[in-house]
Every structure is written in C-alpha cells, then in structure tokens.
C-alpha cells in the first residue's frame, strides 16, 4: 500500500514547551492508523501540524508522495485532509446543509444560493454513511453524536484522502460508537487513510491496523496492532504496566446523605427517586441526552426543577444557585469542559482556585501564595503536564485541561462530589490516579455520584447504578446485578420483566 501522508522528523516548540521531538509518522491509503500516548504526549499537536493549525518547527511532510508545506487549515483542506476534532467545530446556528457547504455554497447563474441542490447533495452524502438527518436542521438542535456525523459528512463532501479523528468516541454511546466504526470501515474500503486518536485500548485493537506510540513528544514505536497486546501498548505509553484499573476498595455505607424524591423538570426528566449513603460511589448511566446531566444540575442549584424534593443531610436542599450548594458541601464537575468547566484564558492557578477562593481569602483579600501552592500540589498529585502553574489553561492538552477541572473541585474540599464524565480525554495512567483519589475520598467519609457514558468505568467504580432512558428512571441496579447487556437494555428503554427483586 502507498503512503497517503508521511511526516518525517517533526519537531515542535511552544514557548517553554517542547511538544514534539523528531517524530516520524506515515499513514497508508486504506489503513486505520492509531496514534496513542499519555496526556500531553503530543498527539493533537501532530495532527494540528498536519492540518495547518500549527506550523512545525522542524521536519518534512509528504502528501501523496510530494513534499508539502501546509500553511493553514484551508490549504490542508484543499490538499485532501480532513479532521474531526474532539470539540465539534461547526457553525452551531446554521443548518446541516449550510455547514456541509460552508464557503462553497452551490449557486445558480444569478448568484443566488441553490438550496434545492444543496439539500439534495447533503441528504445523499449523509445517506452514504447511513445517517438520517434533516439537512435543514439547525446544528445546535442535534445530539453530540449527530453533530459529529455532520463533521464527517463535511469532510466527505470535500473528498478527503486522509481523515483524522481526535478522540471521537469520548462522548458517544456504545451504539453511536458502532455507527462511527462502520463509517470508518467504509472510508477504509474506499482507500481513504484514517488517523485515529483515542485513549481507549479496546477501540484501537478493534479498528486499527497499525499503532504509533508517542511518549513525551517522542515516538516510541510503530507496531502492527495484531502483533501486540493491550498491555504492551500501555507499557510503551506510560513506561509501566497498568493492572486492575477499577480495583478500588469501597467502604461500608454510612447514613443516608442525599435523597431525591419525585424530581421532575419539563422536557428533561420525570419522577426521579433515589437515595445515596455516606461513603458510597453511586453511578448514573444512560445515553448522552438521557437527562443525567440535567438531574445533577438541578440538585446542584444550577437549574430549577419543576417538582420534587431534594434532601441533603436531612435538610431541604432546593439550592437557589450553585454558590449555595457549594456552601452546603456539594461539588459538581460539569461534563462540558470548555463551556462550563474552565476559564480557558486564565491560568492553571486561577482555575484551580476558582471554586475555593473563600478558603484562601481573608476579608476578600486573597493569599495568592497559598493559592499557588494549592495549584502546584494538584499539578503534582495528578501529574498535570504544564510548564508552570501560571500557564494559560488553553495551552494545555485536552487531558491535562480535564485534570485542572478535577483539581478545582478537589481543592474546594467538599463533602459530596458529583462527577459528570470526570475522565473524558484522560489517559490510562492518570485515570488510575484519579480512581485512587476517589477511593481516598470515600475513605475520608465523602460521597460520590458519578456519571459516565463509558460502561467499563461506571461498572468498575459504582456500587449501585441508576439507569436513565429519555428522562425516565429505568431502574437502580446493585453491584451483583451489573451486567453489560442488562444495563444497555435498560439504557435503550427496554423495561425489565418483573424480575428486579430476584438478582440475576
């Protein structure tokens, strides 16, 4: 097979950071090539260089055999490169069709946009990847998964020869992931090269032909995926092997701390009931959009439920705003890192201290030295990769940004933690560290409510699990009832046949 793209001796320096050093990478036509490595290893930087977002400091790039100097994203696009980034970048207020044809709207001879043709083409392209979506639909009304499919459609319309996916499954459900894999398979059949970045080993081993491993900005190896095991890849990534990821010790539950009764909010969730005991790790599972996030936002005072009551430590907990909830001892790590979790333009220190300024202030005046120390201690604890605690968060890699959000909520010293997709984009090694922290939290008598779309994670961590489907509570399973198939059935709305009291 011939190489579609070849990157040779790529080096990239950012101020104070050596992101890549002499990295080689080649992607063949009709192959799915995985790029793996720890947070901050340089994966995103590689593809951003390929896509013309960043300029390389040193090195050469060949595309279709010819040397190229990729100047900007438009140039990359015209060469036949397309990328689906983890944070979807579509024009959210425009229609699906307008997004697909952005910059190249079909016009009739009077220069008027030919909508009919645009819609027809859009439907054809989306159908070619088995996606059923109204070309007139406004993008921000679509689910994350559909938005991602629209991104892919956009790339297909440009007839890309190399398609890059940067952690595409982070927010997809199992089913949606399957659909994505089918699309990737189709691309492969058509002789398109695919570069695939993910922190999920099982995905890599399912769809990728070859795997390139990066560590600290350097290439460790390129291997045929079939020739190695998951453990091999992980130890090349992190320099040690990682076993029994979810093997955390639970503590015997104490008294009831949170109780939710008949909680409802129009168009979001109906009649939710559950209790959580002190020291418990309670899971919430469901497809993206099934109402999980909305429920915890209501508990946290970020939105107002229409009906129902929440009781926290025996007192009514209808918090008017998140500030009150935080005062009462709650913490909420939101799902949407960029939109709700971080102030990207501020420093690691600022973000780490954001939810706990009260603790380092006397009469409104901050002890900045203490704030810096706290930030530095979390950088150390979570091995966040950053040149200093004064680095702007927008300059960190995705997984390291996530570690900063986690730090913010750990610094807030709460009693009851709500973690909404806490490990999105975090590498295997760091995940284990984070789970260790969870373990310590419950040992200290704190309580955790965790939401995750990633079934192995939630099955491994939670002691009980509430499963949601389209705003409805489908049931609460205990650890001995955890069974992948059963959970997925519930999450897709299939009721249990009267057997909930006889553990299967």
């Amino acid at each position: 097979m011939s190489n579609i793209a070849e990157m040779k001796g790529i080096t990239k320096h950012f101020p104070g950071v050596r992101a890549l050093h002499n990295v080689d990478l080649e992607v063949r036509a009709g192959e799915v090539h995985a790029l793996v490595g720890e947070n901050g290893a340089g994966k995103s930087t590689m593809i951003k260089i390929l896509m013309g977002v960043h300029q390389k400091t040193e090195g050469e790039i060949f595309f279709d055999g010819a040397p190229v100097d990729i100047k900007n994203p438009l140039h990359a696009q015209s060469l036949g490169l397309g990328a689906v980034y983890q944070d979807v970048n579509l024009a959210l207020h425009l229609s699906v069709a307008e997004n697909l044809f952005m910059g190249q709207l079909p016009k009739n001879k009077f220069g008027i946009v030919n909508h009919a043709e645009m819609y027809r083409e859009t439907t054809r392209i989306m159908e070619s990847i088995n996606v059923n979506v109204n070309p007139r639909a406004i993008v921000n009304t679509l689910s994350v998964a559909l938005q991602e499919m629209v991104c892919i459609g956009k790339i297909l319309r440009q007839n890309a020869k190399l398609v890059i996916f940067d952690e595409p499954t982070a927010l997809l459900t199992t089913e949606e992931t399957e659909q994505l894999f089918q699309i990737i398979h189709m691309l492969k059949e058509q002789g398109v090269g695919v570069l695939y970045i993910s922190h999920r080993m099982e995905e890599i081993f399912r769809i990728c032909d070859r795997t390139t491993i990066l560590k600290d900005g350097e290439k460790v190896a390129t291997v045929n995926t079939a020739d190695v095991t998951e453990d091999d890849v992980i130890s090349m990534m992190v320099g040690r092997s990682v076993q029994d990821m979810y093997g955390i010790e639970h503590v015997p539950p104490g008294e009831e701390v949170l109780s939710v009764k008949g909680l409802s909010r129009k168009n979001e969730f109906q009649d939710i009931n559950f209790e959580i005991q002190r020291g418990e790790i309670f899971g919430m599972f469901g497809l993206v959009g099934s109402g999980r996030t909305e429920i915890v936002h209501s508990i946290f005072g970020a939105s107002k439920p229409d009906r129902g009551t929440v009781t926290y430590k025996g007192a009514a907990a209808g918090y008017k705003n998140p500030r009150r909830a935080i005062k009462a001892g709650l913490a909420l790590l939101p799902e949407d890192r960029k939109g709700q979790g971080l102030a990207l333009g501020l420093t690691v220190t600022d973000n780490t201290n954001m939810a706990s300024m009260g603790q380092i202030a006397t009469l409104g005046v901050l002890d900045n030295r203490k704030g810096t120390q706290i930030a530095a201690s979390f950088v150390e604890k979570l091995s966040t990769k950053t040149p200093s605690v004064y680095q702007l968060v927008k300059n960190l890699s995705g997984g390291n940004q996530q570690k900063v959000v986690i730090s913010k909520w750990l610094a807030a010293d709460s009693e009851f933690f709500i973690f909404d997709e806490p490990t999105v984009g975090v590498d295997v090694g760091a995940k284990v560290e984070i789970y260790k922290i969870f373990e310590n939290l419950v040992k200290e008598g704190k309580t955790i409510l965790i939401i995750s779309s990633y079934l192995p994670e939630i099955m491994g961590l939670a002691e009980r699990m509430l499963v949601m489907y389209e705003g409805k509570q489908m049931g609460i399973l205990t650890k001995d009832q955890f069974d992948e198939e059963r959970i997925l059935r519930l999450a897709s709305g299939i009721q249990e046949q009267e057997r909930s009291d006889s553990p299967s």
Partner: protein
Amino acid sequence: MNNAAPTRGRMRLYIGSGKTELFLLLVLGLLFLTFGYFSDVFFTVFNLMNLLRQTAIYGIVAIGMVFVIISSGIDLSVGSVVGFSGMITAMALVAGLPFFVAILLAIVLSAGIGLINGILVYDGKVPPFIATLGAMAVVRAVIMLVTNARMISGLPRAFIDISQATLFGVPLLAVAWIVLTIIAYFVIRKTVFGRSVFAYGSNKEAARLSGINVRRTIYGVYIYSAVMCAIAGILLTSRLSSATPTAGSGYELDAIAAAVVGGASLSGGEGSILGAFLGAIIMSTLRQGGTLLGLNAFVMEIIIGALIVVAVLLDQLRRKQGGTK
C-alpha cells in the same frame, strides 16, 4: 517540565503578563523622544505636569472601564456620569454644604447609577452596550433638565484650588490618578472580587458553576466604574471651576481606547490596569505633542484613531505568534 518550578514560573508570569505594558512603555518612550526632538517646550516641567493633569481625569475613568471590559461588558454611560457628578458637587457646594458632604453626595448618587446599570445587566439581562447606552442618554438629559442647560459657577475658591494644588511638585490630580491606579491594581490581582471579574469575563457559566457570586461581581464592576467617574467629575469641576452640562461628553471613547490600547480585550477575561494607565498617557502625549508641533487637531484625531487600531492589531499578532510559533 512536569512540575511547576515556582521561582521560574513566577518570573514567567511577570514577563508574560508584562509584554503589553513593556511594549506600551517603548511606544511612549519613542513618542517622548520624537516630540522632545521637534519641540523645545515639550520637556519643560510645566508641560509635563500639564500633560499629567490633562490625562488624569479620563485616566481615572479608564480605570473603571478596565473592570467593566474584563467582565466582558462595556460602560457607555461614563461621560454622562462624569457630568452628573460634577453637577451634584457644584449644586451642593453652591447650596453651602461642606466639601466632604458635597463629594460624598456626588459619589453615592453616581454609584446609584452604576447600581442601576448593574441591575439592568444582571437581573434584566439587558446587554451592557444597550443598558449603558440608555443610561448615557437618560443621565445626560437629566443634567440638561436640572441645570436648564446652563453651567453652574460661583464655586468656593478652596474647591477650585484642589485641581491647582501639587504634592511635592506633582499635581494633585495626577496623584489621585496614580493612587487610584495602585488601588485598582491591588483589587484586580489580590481580591476575590478582582479574580471573580476575570473568571466571569473569561467564562460566565464556569464562574457561575464554581460558586462565584455573579450578582455581586456585575453590580461591583458597574459601581466601581461609576465611582471612578464620580471622582473624575469632581476633579473636572474643580479644574474648570464650574460644572458645565456637557462636561464629560466623549469620555467613553477615550476611556475605552485607553483600556483597549492597554491590552483589554472586548471579549472579556483580559485587561490590565497598568496598561490602561500607559494607554491613557500615550493618547494625551499624542494630542499634546501634536498641538505643540502645530499639527491640525483633526489630523491628530486621525492619528489617534489609527493608533488604537494599530495597537490592537499588533497585540493580536504578537499573541498569535506566542500561541502557535
């Protein structure tokens, strides 16, 4: 590379956040040299003091504007509040009230206007541009109605002397400006309020979910801005030895320009008190130097307009390079 080395990190912070300011200092130096070379009166003490005196008043207004802009808002009512505060002070003084009562009255009533702006923006969800545009028109109209569009003069000598007084040879006006700048610098860096303004301006939703008191933060920035305007209005009245109904008109543009030239970003989350200080001086230096060289006043305004755009352009360019090269 992994763990933060505090000492090196701290140095990086100062250099990193000081880039805009250093650049402005350079520009200022160049302007001084140019005007000093072409005009022999430019470097006289009298002229330099006059420069400070002239800049001080809208420099003070710019301090408040920096807070508002960092919060991703804008305050167009500043000019009207300057006029309003001057009017209140003058009326109170003419009515024979003691100095400090007159001043307090002006500050408190102006703060009230700031509070209304804050309520409109936070509780009313009115975009800051519209809310303060409304306040700008209404407050100016109130001034016109109350004063019958006439100026108020006959102010006590001692009050007028304030603007002429000096402290160790430095005009009191400039001293006030410098002191207020230092206070604001402290507030922005070292208080919960200051960091909340940054957090809110950088990401509203993240700030809210982090338990930041958004109401207090928004009320705070508009009140801070109004209080700065009130002080500027009092000083302006003293300097003009009367309160004119049009006093302060056009200040909004000068203040915004000083803030933006000083590195504030209109999309929020970024801004520097020191930068605004230097931005204000640069603009007055241009105006004054131009006058000394006998340049046409309109030509000077063109140059200043161009300067604002160029400053922002250069800053964007520098930032982009820092980010991707």
